[in-house]
């Protein structure tokens, strides 16, 4: 999380995008959840997904982390270092390779309740990435320090507030040093006064140059941090653009409606 160490793996030569998604489609039974999702994301950029409930935002994110298997489309990371065509069968090894590049922060944190804060963070580095324990713990502590949770290293998740749990969730993802950080409504199960502490951490990550895809309804955050915003509805990208433009002058009627409902709830 300090600029020197973290998004190092992500520094591919400037021209090719870090992430390239083409024609992603997914149905659950009869229900077409994603139709044809295309986007690219350059290293160090922040992409925000907004859209009504059920529009497919989570499904997009989960596809990028190999938690969901789209029916068609391609995902290419780091100029093809990991390239998946979902039209064919995807091997477990490929799925693991994809997960290796990305890490998810969940809406409900999904911390491991039986592990302490420090163990939650070091589980991936030590068990999966086989890094030395001392090494992994030192780095984890540095990250926890940065988000103000160093003194909670031996606490169990149930002893933390929601905002603290979510900060641990973020540190757990960052500690894996992925090329891509995925956030699925990371503040929406938090008490309103705790939202700020998590958004602050996320903003700092963005400023440090991490590449991020964020699903959120925090329009203020999106305006300040996002490089591009995609508005999804019914499984398609209805509109895309820089946040300043999209939030103030949406070209599509549906986007306008949605933003209105968020900004003026009643």
């Amino acid at each position, binding site marked *: 999380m300090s600029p020197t160490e973290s998004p190092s793996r992500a520094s591919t030569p400037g021209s090719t995008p870090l992430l390239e998604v083409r024609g992603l489609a997914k149905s659950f039974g009869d229900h077409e959840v994603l139709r044809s999702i295309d986007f690219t994301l350059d290293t160090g950029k922040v992409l925000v997904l907004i859209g009504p409930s059920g529009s497919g935002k989570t499904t997009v994110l989960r596809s990028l*982390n*190999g*938690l969901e298997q789209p029916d068609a489309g391609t995902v290419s990371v780091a100029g093809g270092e990991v390239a998946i065509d979902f039209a064919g069968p995807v091997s*477990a090894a490929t799925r*693991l390779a994809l*997960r*290796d590049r*990305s*890490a*998810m922060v*969940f809406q*409900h944190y*999904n*911390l*491991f*309740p*039986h*592990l302490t804060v420090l163990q939650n963070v070091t*589980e*991936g580095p030590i*068990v*999966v*990435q086989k890094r030395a324990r001392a090494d992994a713990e030192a780095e984890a502590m540095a990250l926890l320090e940065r988000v103000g949770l160093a003194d909670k290293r031996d606490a*169990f*998740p*149930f*002893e933390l507030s929601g905002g603290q749990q979510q900060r641990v969730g973020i540190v*757990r*993802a960052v500690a*894996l040093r992925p090329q891509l950080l995925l956030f699925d409504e990371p503040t929406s199960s938090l008490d309103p006064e705790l939202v700020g502490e998590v958004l602050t951490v996320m903003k700092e990550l963005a400023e440090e140059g991490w590449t991020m895809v964020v699903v959120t309804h925090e329009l203020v955050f999106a305006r300040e941090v996002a490089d591009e915003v995609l508005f999804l509805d019914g499984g398609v990208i209805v509109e895309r653009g820089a946040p300043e433009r999209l939030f103030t002058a949406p070209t599509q009627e549906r986007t306008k409606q949605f933003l209105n409902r968020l900004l003026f709830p009643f």
Partner: protein
Amino acid sequence: MDWELFWVSLWPIVRGGLVGTIPLSIASFAIGLVIALLVALARISGIRVLSGIARFYVSVIRGTPLLVQLFVIFYWLPSLGLLIDPWPSAVIAFSLNVGGYAAEVIRAAILSVPKGQWEAGHTIGMSRTTTLRRIILPQAARVSVPPLSNTFISLVKDTSLASLILVTELFREAQKIAAFSQEFVMIYMEAALVYWVFSLVLSTAQSRIEKRLDRYVAH
């Protein structure tokens, strides 16, 4: 109430428990748990043949009397040329029995761990197996202690059937004394008392374990 008989009978009955009932229960339970885990995993594996076999096994074990299971292993297998000594036979029969009952408990416990825990394991790069081992099972263990300790307490009493296949245990000792003294009602009640004391000890152990495993949940 013949108190003299009560007191002279106590040690033989307790000894029967210590050399028969307890070791038999512990060995069978330990092996049974391993079987149960494998069967539970087979059932949730998603591999149709495997889960079919597991389902059939559980159905047979739970659907038929333990007495018959003992008979089949000890008295019927020899007709297929498989002659197994009493103790191993008993351990096999009771382990298979525990395996069937505990499999369902473990399966339910695994399924009770929120799906988000699997996904959290996956997102930090763990394979299915690693997630199961390091994330899911430790959490499932906590949920399964109370029902498993039920299974264990039942097992302790069920081992009395082992006397049918030549294993000496607590209840067999009681029967011997009852046959000699003709005081079967009193002696059986005495045996029940000993079982009860054993089960109280087990319950205490259960609470200890539960407390230990509960340290990471809110109260």
